[in-house]
């Protein structure tokens, strides 16, 4: 009884018209697929202003998401939700909502492209977003790199609010690696530590994905938070963040303000800077060039004394 869009989504040029508010949006392209809907890049008919528009698979699931977004709209001046409506297509009424379009890359791609040294800043911006959400009484739930959009200068926006739940309620949506329950490290009740745990796993993934993948491969009953702690200890790349990560994994932050302040301290403190510059790796091109010159030298010597 799961309702799905029977077709492969709307092709570019499709006009989506609101049944109740009569706004018209023109599809430019598909941006992605979430757990409960498909997201398109659209512009309002006649205007160049671009938005992201999410078409839901199920009216109830989508409305639940819209409810959270409108509650957030009232509490945070940074309005994300533009409007919600229904569109009539060949399969009947389909619900959709319109949100601000956020240009950028998902977290892992951003860090992969720009370098791991950006994690400090991006993490800081993300923690700021999270603590705003927490202060409004919600937890994000399904925190993972795909749901974190980073703009070119490290500004961060959370996307896909389908997993958001009130503090104290069960987490609605989660993804294995980032789930506290998956690591036998605690409940699936939505509290601020749940989000901070996911945040810590994201950092681990960004800095050492291979080790995280290995840790996740062991038997489910032996998987534990200690594996993550060990992994952080082993790799020197974690050094500036280690204390923060351990605290987040153990769920020891009293609130997200404290987590935010400690993160700021660990990336901006005097010791942090030194730790980072010391472990700066020689760039790969330099190493390659060095190897090449050694090779040429060897050849020269060989031909010289032959």
């Amino acid at each position, binding site marked *: 009884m799961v309702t799905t869009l029977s077709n492969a989504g709307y092709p570019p040029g499709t006009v989506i018209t609101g049944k*109740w508010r009569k706004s018209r949006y023109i599809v430019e392209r598909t941006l992605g697929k979430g757990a409960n809907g498909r997201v398109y890049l659209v512009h309002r008919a006649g205007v160049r202003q671009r938005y992201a528009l999410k078409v839901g698979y199920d009216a109830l699931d989508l409305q639940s998401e819209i*409810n959270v977004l409108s509650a957030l709209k009232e509490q945070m001046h940074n309005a994300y939700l533009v409007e919600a409506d229904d569109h009539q297509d060949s399969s*009947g009424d389909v619900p959709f909502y319109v949100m601000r379009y956020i240009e950028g890359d998902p977290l892992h791609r951003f860090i992969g492209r720009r370098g791991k040294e950006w994690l400090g800043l991006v993490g800081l911006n993300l923690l700021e977003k999270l603590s705003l959400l927490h202060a409004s009484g919600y937890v994000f739930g399904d925190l993972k790199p795909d749901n974190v959009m980073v703009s070119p200068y490290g500004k961060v926006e959370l996307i896909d609010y389908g997993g958001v739940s009130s503090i104290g309620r069960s987490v609605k949506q989660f993804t294995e690696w980032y789930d506290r329950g*998956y690591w036998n490290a605690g409940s699936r*009740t939505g509290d601020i530590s749940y989000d901070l745990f996911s945040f810590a796993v994201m950092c681990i993934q960004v800095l050492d994905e291979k080790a995280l993948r290995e840790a996740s491969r062991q038997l489910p009953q032996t998987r534990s938070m200690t594996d993550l702690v060990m992994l952080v200890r082993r790799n020197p790349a974690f050094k500036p963040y280690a204390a923060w990560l351990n605290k987040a994994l153990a769920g020891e932050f009293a609130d997200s303000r404290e987590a935010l302040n400690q993160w700021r301290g660990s990336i901006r403190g005097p010791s942090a800077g030194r730790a980072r510059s010391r472990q700066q790796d020689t760039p790969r091109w330099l190493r390659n060039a060095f190897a090449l010159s050694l090779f040429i030298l060897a050849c020269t010597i060989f031909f010289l004394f032959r």
Partner: protein
Amino acid sequence: MKQILLITDGCSNVGESPVMAAAHALAEGIVVNVVGVLDYGTIGELGAFEIQEIAKAGGGLHRIVGTPQLAQTMQMMTRKTVVQTIQQAVNKEIQHILGGGSLEELPPDKRSQVVEVVDELAETSSLEVALLIDASASMKPKLAAVEEAIRDLMLSLKARAGASRLAVFHFPGRGSEEEVVLDVNWTSDLDGVRSMFGRLQMKGATPTGPALLKVIEFFQYGTLGNNQSWKGHTGQEEGMLGDYVV
């Protein structure tokens, strides 16, 4: 709210039609979800068809997945079914009040209020899930994954605000008279349970239908007992799938 989650990897081949049994469950207010587990090979057209039919008759969902997705699938199904059950009840109320129409037809602001109520009830209502595990020979290598998935489901249920408990059964039993075995009685905590499926005797028979009927009985009387009331139905055991059973 009551749910049965059937985990199997193929066709039933003994006794009453599981499709009929699932329809009985639904009549008793118990929704039946079915997960087909498969790692190698195929589940077969017949098996897939039966899985789909059982879920349809039982008013539930059905999925066919590999063991790595099992835990997540079970969690998602249980959650979706809870919401659906409440939504159906709420829709009935809406129709009662408005004389027709459903959630989808309500204007956005009304819909928002209704969904708020549905979400609240989905989180706070009490829930009982009976897991019925097909332990026929071909399922043996998958049972460790099944047990893990059940523990994972318990973790999700524990996080709900409403009271939640689950029970675990497997079938077939040891003798020919025993269609189903109770492994874990109603519980809200599996931490004390060492191993769910102790030593199983793997047999070829897959009495899915009779096992389902026994679990319905368990929901009603809290025991698998010797209550043979369902035996009365054996005369009509050539249910919907009677013709297909090989």
